[in-house]
Each structure stands twice: as structure tokens, then as C-alpha cells.
């Protein structure tokens, strides 16, 4: 049974973010951190009519927007929503955290699914990739430009296909440095203090 599915790309085709019939462009930036979570930023500029329509539905009701996105992304846990609107330029930027965007498979490789068949991925830098998508659901009227930024620690990055022919990222990444270990560093501190004190006493006696 297939149970893990992280369809990063298709999940952003949300009506809450796209309600227009005219040609529109959406920028989606995904920055993956060293433990596989993604910081997602979706931005878009609209014309006056679109802006009015979007504000009426979601722009002036961010809780409805949040709810729609949560419902539209069943494979994720998302939080930390932040909506920045620029009324002067009729644009918005929505950022959110998506947990568990990447996972480690049985062989220890990090995997990130794009949920797109034969995705045309373009490498911008060693760790940054771009993907342009025009979802058929919108009859070609929506262009989505994805920028996927993998962590600096990622290496041996390659694109592959899963069992369903969908494009995936595969890469290796070492464990990030762990949290500060108070006990270990307290021990070191006490050893140094104790040693120094003992040494000082020994020198003073002489």
C-alpha cells in the first residue's frame, strides 16, 4: 500500500490562490531546511479586477485562506501562515511552513517528490532548481514558476522517477549538528576548573 506521498507541486493548485480565468503567473519558492521541512512562499501580482475578486474571497479573510490551504494539502502539516498584502501593487506573498516535505528512504537517501510526470527541471545553481508548470486543470491560463532550494548540505543531488513515473529529487545530506549538550559541556567545564584548581594548588605548595 502506498502511504507516503508528498505531492509538493500539485498541492499548490488551490482555488484560494487562483480564482481567475485570465493568464496569470504565480511564483512559488520552496526552501528546504537541513531536516527536510520546507518554507514555502507563494507570491502573485494581479490586475485590478482579479485583486478585487481575490480580496472579496480570501484577501480580507485570511482565516478562510488558511483553512482552504490546510484542506487542499492533506498530505502535509502546515503552520506559521503569514500573509503580506501590497494593495498599492495588487500583490500578495503568502508564506507557510510545510513539515516533512522530504523524507529519508530505507537506503538513507533523501527523497522529495514533485508529483509531476516528466517535470522539466532546470538547475539554476548547485542547490537551486526551477520548474515551470502550466496545470491542465486551468486550461493553460495559469503559469506557475517553482523555485526549489535544497539545503547547502545536500550533495549528490539527482533527479529521478518514482514507481509512478513522477519526477523526484534524490540527494544525500549528513546529520546537522545536534542541539547544545549541556551535560557534556558542563562536564568539560568542571574537568577544566577542577584540573586548573588542582594544578594551581600543586604549584602554590611548591
Amino acid at each position: 500500500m502506498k502511504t507516503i506521498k508528498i505531492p509538493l507541486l500539485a498541492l499548490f493548485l488551490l482555488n484560494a490562490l487562483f480564482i481567475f480565468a485570465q493568464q496569470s503567473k504565480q511564483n512559488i519558492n520552496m526552501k528546504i531546511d537541513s531536516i527536510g521541512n520546507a518554507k514555502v512562499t507563494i507570491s502573485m501580482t494581479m490586475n485590478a479586477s482579479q485583486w478585487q475578486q481575490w480580496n472579496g474571497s480570501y484577501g480580507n479573510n485570511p482565516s478562510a485562506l488558511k483553512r482552504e490551504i490546510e484542506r487542499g494539502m492533506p498530505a502535509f502539516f502546515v503552520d506559521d501562515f503569514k500573509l503580506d498584502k501590497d494593495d498599492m501593487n495588487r500583490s500578495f506573498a503568502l508564506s507557510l511552513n510545510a513539515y516533512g516535505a522530504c523524507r529519508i528512504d530505507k537506503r538513507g537517501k533523501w527523497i522529495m517528490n514533485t508529483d509531476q510526470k516528466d517535470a522539466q527541471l532546470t538547475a539554476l545553481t548547485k542547490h537551486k532548481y526551477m520548474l515551470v508548470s502550466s496545470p491542465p486543470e486551468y486550461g493553460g491560463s495559469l503559469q506557475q514558476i517553482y523555485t526549489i532550494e535544497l539545503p547547502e548540505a545536500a550533495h549528490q543531488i539527482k533527479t529521478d522517477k518514482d514507481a509512478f513515473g513522477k519526477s523526484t529529487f534524490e540527494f544525500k545530506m549528513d546529520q546537522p549538528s545536534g542541539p547544545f549538550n549541556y551535560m557534556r559541556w558542563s562536564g568539560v567545564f568542571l574537568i577544566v576548573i577542577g584540573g586548573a584548581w588542582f594544578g594551581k594548588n600543586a604549584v602554590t605548595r611548591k
Partner: protein
Amino acid sequence: MKSKFIPLAIALVGILCFATSFIIPSSNSGELEVEIEKSAFIMPAVHRVYSNPDALNGKYHLFKAKITNKSNQTLEDVTVKYRIPDYIDWTELTVSGQMFPGQTLVIPCYPKFKDDITEKSTESIEKAQIEISWDGAEEDDIIEEEFSFKITNRNEYVYTGVKTEEISTWSDMYDNDALIACFVTPNDPVVKYYTQNLQEKMMKGEAASITRKPEDGVRFLANIYEATRKSHMVYSGTKGIPQSTEDIQSIVQQIRLPREVITGNTGLCIELSCLYASVLSAAGLDPIIYMVPGHAYPGFKMNGQYFAIEATSINGQGLGGIASAEEAFKKGNENLKEFMERAQSGDPRYTLVDIHAVNQQGVTAMDLKDNDFMRKKVDDIVASWSSEQPVQPKNETQPNRRPSNTEIIVPENSIKTSALSFAIPNGWQTMMRPVPQVPILTAQVVAPDQLTTVSIYDIPAASIEEAMQTIDQYMLNFGMQMQYQSNGNTISGQTQAQDGSTFNWVGKCLKSQNGIRVVAVGAPSYAYNQKTGIINQVFNSIR
């Protein structure tokens, strides 16, 4: 002595702390944080949707687990499995090769119930158990979680799964509309048998799915109605009550399956709609169920046109007012007209379920086994059909003849809104065939300010390019020139008149039964920016 003892003791404590820091992490039970988001209920009829991660974008699952490694140690081979006693044995959901400190795993569970879940006739409360383990975990370390949920009986249809506190719109209250397709069972052997008998004994042959002619489709629809009428099928209610399941409050409707409607010879509007949709689908037509406030009725679509019938017009002797097929079809068309008007004006209460379209999204029918007793019941019903003649569409060459009880009129061009339609704003004036010299211009709708205009062209052409060339040719005859660009079925352009004035427009094209329909809305270039709002409004309503 004292001067040596204290510093040595401090150093010794330091060594102990240092050593312990390497030992403590190996015992890290309880440092995996688990958060479960669960479904309050499972509908057996929908079991194929729950098992398919791709169905409706993975919206329907049993639970979703968020597991975060809160320890400072990397865990190896983290395995998550679950079971539902009496339904699903221990099943591995995922194995993560490693899980770094702070890393999160998100695991949705799409349970694969056995097919016999569709035989469940009573509801029950069940438990799901989840187990999370990893390499080197002691028995005490293994995390076990469980939660309870309801499995309804196979006939129960819960209208929404949205939590009560989150419901804000009509569509929230009917969030599960697409799942009605699970109750449409064209592959049920009993429904297939019924359909075959209908085609053979009632209609004496039909080919609507092959000819793709609307009149053949309408004939089929009317014959389903006649089959139910002749077998004295009656309209009757079933239990539909509001129920609370944890945070969710929804109307829960008992829906008799199409096979139960056939053999029980009775059905409610939604049940009759599912029966019609099952039979239409089994015969190769595209069934539609129209959902309106407090009611549902069936129909089909063909060549971009929509048709409907009022299936509940059978009523019954106890209710009176048993309508003929013609009357039921007429009523269906009235319903459909209202439906289109409401839907186009953006009324969210008027929705339709295109059964084959949602089937393609993974919402598929439940599995049902053959049943000899039901087949015999079908035989009895078929025997009741032999008394009258099958329904025929009215012959168009005899326009003055009043249709008999077993004839129906296929409306010309069917529903006007079928190929491409749009919402006409209040106060706008519609002119049919405004320019006789341009027969392809079917209608024009003009705003009160006489600036914004919508034009509807029906062009006998095979492609959009050919259609646009035809329009261009007509324009040239009037001394006008047209420039346009297309993107899929969306077009935009500019038309220049002899006097130098220009008209900017945007529109959409779609293949219709007789060629291409083009609907374009625009305004003179000097007023275009000023009228952008209304132009966009009309453009966005073109469907």
C-alpha cells in the same frame, strides 16, 4: 589534603557528566512527539476512495500522523504501522531509513479495507492502533497510539466531514458531494442485468452511446423513466437525520443502492438519481446528478449539452400525480434552466456531480456481488414492462402532431446554455440574430451604456482557426479588420472599423454540436480600460 580533594572532586563530577552525556541519549523513549489528525467516520461505500492516495488529491484518509524526533540522536529505520482490529491486520505505513534530531515525518494513512466492508449493515465504533518503533528500541520505547472512529453502515452517506466550528458556507455543509458517485454502481451485476433488459425488452434496441445524438440520449433517459413508471415504482422517503460524530455535525442520509431501488421498487430523489446515473453509465452515456437545495435529479451530458429529467415525477398511487415521460422531461428541463441560471449567477447551492469526471479523480463505485434473488426480482419487473410501447422521441417531420403519452420532444438546440454560456448582467439587452447578413452571429447582448457588448457566434467550422477565419471574412465584407491571438480556447483581439475606431475584446471558443461557438466580450478601445471590471466579470462567467 583538603586542597587536593575539592578540585579532584570537581574534576571527577565533570568526568561523570561528560561520560553520562554519551550514555543518556541511548535511552530516549518518549522523545518522539506524535500528533494524530483523524477522520471521525468512515463510509463503507467510499472504501475505494479511502484506499487511494490520488483520489480527490488525497483528501480522504483515516488519519494523518506528524512524528517529530525530539531527541538529540538520529534514529534508524523508524517504522510506522497500524491496524484496525477485525478489519485490517498490522500494516506497515512507512520505514524511514534515518530520522535526524528535529526531523518530522508526515504520514497520511489510506486504509485498504476488504471488499466485504460493503456488506456492513450496521454502524459501529472501531479502534485504530498505531505503533512506531525503530532500530534498537526497547519494548518500553515503542510508541503506541490509538483512537476510535465510526464506521457507518454501507447505505449511510454523510454530507460533510468539515468540523462544525469551521463551517461557514453552503459548500462546507455539503463538502462530500463528489462522494455520491460511490453510490452510482454501473458495474453492479444486478444493475447491468436491469440495463440490458431495458435496452432489449423496453427499448427494443438503442445506440445512444454510439450515435452520440442528443435525441437518442433523451430517448434513453425517458425510457428509464418509463421503466420505473410501468413497474409502479413509487417515491418514498428514507432516514435522513442530523448526527453528531465528535466535532462533526452533518445530515446523514440512508441511501438505498440502485439495486435496492430496482428490487424494492421505491426511491427518494437522490436514490432515483443514483439509479438513473448507474443505468446511464452502464449504457455508455455520461451521467450527471444535479444537486439543488433539498433536491437532486438526474440527467446526462452529450456533446457539451446538458439534459435532465425529473425522476421523482413517478410519485405513486398513494401520492397521486403520476406524470408521463414527456411531463417528467419537461419538468427536468425547467429544473435545468433554473439550475443554469442560478449556477451562473454564482449561487453555491446549485452544483452538479459529473459522475465520470469524478470517477476519473478516483471516486469509484463500491464492489457489489451478484445476487440471484435480485435478478429474479428484475425478471418480475421486466415482465411488467411488456404492456405498453417503448418511448420514442417525437419525429421532427410531424411538428403539428400532439405528442402522446409515450413521446417526448427533444428541444431544439436543447439548453441554450450548453456549449458556451455566460451570465447576463441585469439591465442588458439581448438581440437575437441582430445582423441578418451575418448568420453566424447568433446573438448580441449590449450593456445599457451601449459600450460593452457580448457577441455569440456559432460557426460551422472544424477548428478554432477556421472559425476565426470565417468571422474575419464576414468582417472584411463590412470593411472591418480583425487581429487576434489565441491561447487554448481563450482568444483576445482587436477589430478595426473603416472610420478608424477600434474595438477591443476577449473571449472563449468551444466546439459545439454544429461547429465552433465563440463568445466574445469587449468595448471600444477608448472605453476599454474603464469597462475592464464588467468585461472581466462577463468573461469569467463564460463557461
